[in-house]
């Protein structure tokens, strides 16, 4: 089994309605680990739930003629072949061709040269090209996910590829780190750190590591959410009593502007993609429910009605679907709500789900759950049919946040 295939588990429940059949032939010169280009592409495509991947032939590269008969016999609509060569300066030359099997024609052919540390990124970008060519929508395989691991006495904020591989460490602390949130351009993370014995909201530039607190008032500072234009963050502060929502400037200057005035808990703000509304959690009606209001705090209205405990809202990039965690009996599960027609759909069947976050193309969710006593991260299609467990080193993994396109 190629290395990349052993690194995750795809669980397919139910039958995918329309999966596009694609043949992915191992690249000539393909190596193990990050150089397993075709294996990474194959894993990406399968995880999306949109493709059925086969490898009907071996020994091809980008210059080979299309083995149309074999590809057709395997039922493939498209076929990817290529090669990977390590150059004298240590970089890699990757060449590939995607065939339209039915028309015996070329979909695309490319050559890229990448540094060794960008090998995985190159494979993810090939998968994105295939995704866009065959579905008409952008793929998210080259995007990143931030998450937190916990070991005995250490909390680590990681930034990894969307398949959970290739992780880099953004922050380590002996105190908890929660609620990472990506800036719209993917270059900064806001998060909550308890390193000063209080919950404080920080913003950190990923490339330089430079960071500063943006909300550090008395009591608790938490739940950062970026405005779509990145000038402000909505946060939860308890400086005036119970947890309430405020708007703070990205540079930390000026006074926070209070958005909610209730004696209840108001927290977990998230902006609608057009920036005009803020969805949030409030227990002003008794149990915690998702509400929405104008971004100035006007006209709050309740959004979730099924169940007595609904928290952790996330909004799809098109603004049409709300994902959240709902309590069902003693289980906490990820659900989606169609904001236009009110249809609720349970995505997961596990017990301890937390923190759903949309992929930037809106096709997948990542969330945290628990499996045999260990906190793990799952991705799922919105219909819940195809789930993948992200690579785990056995440490508790939690608080996933899916980053935007671009890096």
């Amino acid at each position: 089994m190629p290395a990349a295939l052993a690194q995750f588990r795809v669980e397919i429940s139910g039958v995918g309605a329309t999966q596009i059949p694609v043949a992915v032939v191992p690249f000539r010169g393909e190596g193990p680990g990050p150089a397993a280009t075709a294996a990474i592409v194959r894993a990406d495509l399968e995880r999306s739930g949109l493709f059925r991947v086969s490898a009907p032939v071996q020994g091809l590269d980008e210059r080979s003629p299309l083995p149309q008969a074999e590809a057709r016999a395997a039922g493939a609509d498209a076929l990817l072949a290529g090669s990977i060569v390590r150059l004298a300066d240590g970089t890699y030359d990757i060449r590939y061709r995607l065939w339209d099997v039915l028309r015996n024609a070329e979909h695309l052919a490319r050559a890229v040269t990448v540094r060794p540390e960008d090998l995985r990124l190159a494979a993810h970008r090939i998968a994105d090209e295939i995704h866009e060519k065959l579905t008409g929508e952008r793929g998210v395989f080259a995007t990143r996910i931030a998450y937190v691991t916990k070991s005995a006495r250490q909390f680590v904020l990681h930034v990894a590829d969307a398949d959970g591989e290739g992780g880099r460490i953004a922050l380590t602390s002996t105190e908890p780190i929660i609620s990472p949130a990506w800036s719209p351009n993917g270059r900064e993370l806001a998060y909550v750190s308890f390193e000063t014995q209080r919950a404080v909201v920080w913003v950190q530039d990923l490339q330089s590591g430079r960071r500063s607190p943006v909300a550090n008032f008395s009591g608790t500072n938490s739940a950062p959410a970026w405005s779509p234009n990145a000038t402000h963050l909505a946060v939860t502060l308890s400086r005036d009593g119970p947890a309430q929502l405020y708007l703070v400037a990205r540079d930390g200057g000026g006074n926070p502007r209070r958005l909610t005035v209730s004696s209840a808990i108001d927290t977990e703000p998230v902006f609608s993609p057009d920036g005009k509304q803020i969805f949030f959690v409030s227990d002003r009606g008794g149990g915690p429910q998702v509400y929405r209001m104008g971004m100035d705090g006007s006209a709050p209205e309740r959004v979730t009605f099924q169940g007595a405990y609904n928290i952790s809202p996330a909004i799809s990039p098109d603004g049409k679907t709300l994902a959240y965690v709902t309590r069902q009996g003693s289980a906490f599960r990820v659900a989606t709500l169609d904001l236009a027609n009110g249809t609720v759909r349970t995505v997961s069947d596990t017990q301890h789900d937390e923190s759903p976050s949309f992929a930037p193309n809106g096709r997948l969710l990542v969330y945290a759950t628990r499996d045999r006593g260990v906190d793990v991260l799952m991705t799922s299609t919105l219909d819940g049919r195809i789930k993948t467990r992200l690579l785990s080193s056995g440490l508790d993994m939690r608080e996933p946040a899916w980053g935007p396109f671009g890096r």
Partner: protein
Amino acid sequence: MTRTFPSLAIVLSAAALLSACASGVNLKEVPVETRSPDTGASVQTPAAPPPAAQSEVATVRAGTADTSAAAAEAALARTGRVVYFDFDSFVVRDDGKPVVESHAKVLGANRSRRMVIEGHTDERGGREYNLALGQKRAMAVLNALTLLGVSPGQLEAVSFGEERPAAQGSTEEAWAKNRRAELKDAK
């Protein structure tokens, strides 16, 4: 100098009476204790903190500079420094009131002493909502202390949500130990 402290129960019930009598209360603004439907019917048996040892004897040294302060300190040792809560609740239970009262005594006896109240929750539910709930628990203890005459300037309420459990495990016994507010001297 001797100071008398009103019982917390009397103060709290007086406050409750006052608010109940007040007119024009917006019911939407009244905090409602949340209980999940599936636990509402079952009887919860939260694990109470261990009581003070019955053979405990507090040593009082006659002739020292401040006997009332020493007595107050002894009361603190007797009651412990943790207030426990019911599931999804931020109401100080009867078993927490002696803890609040003993802390009110030491803070009243020494107005320069400062304390941090750390609110905590059990692991169930969301981390951010639990962070807010823990803050509410810390605030409930802070408010109870100020009702007993402690200056708000001596206190800070913070929350660790579910992030710092006192007991590991996913049992009701562990959860009951984790739903708490800890009173610590400020550094």
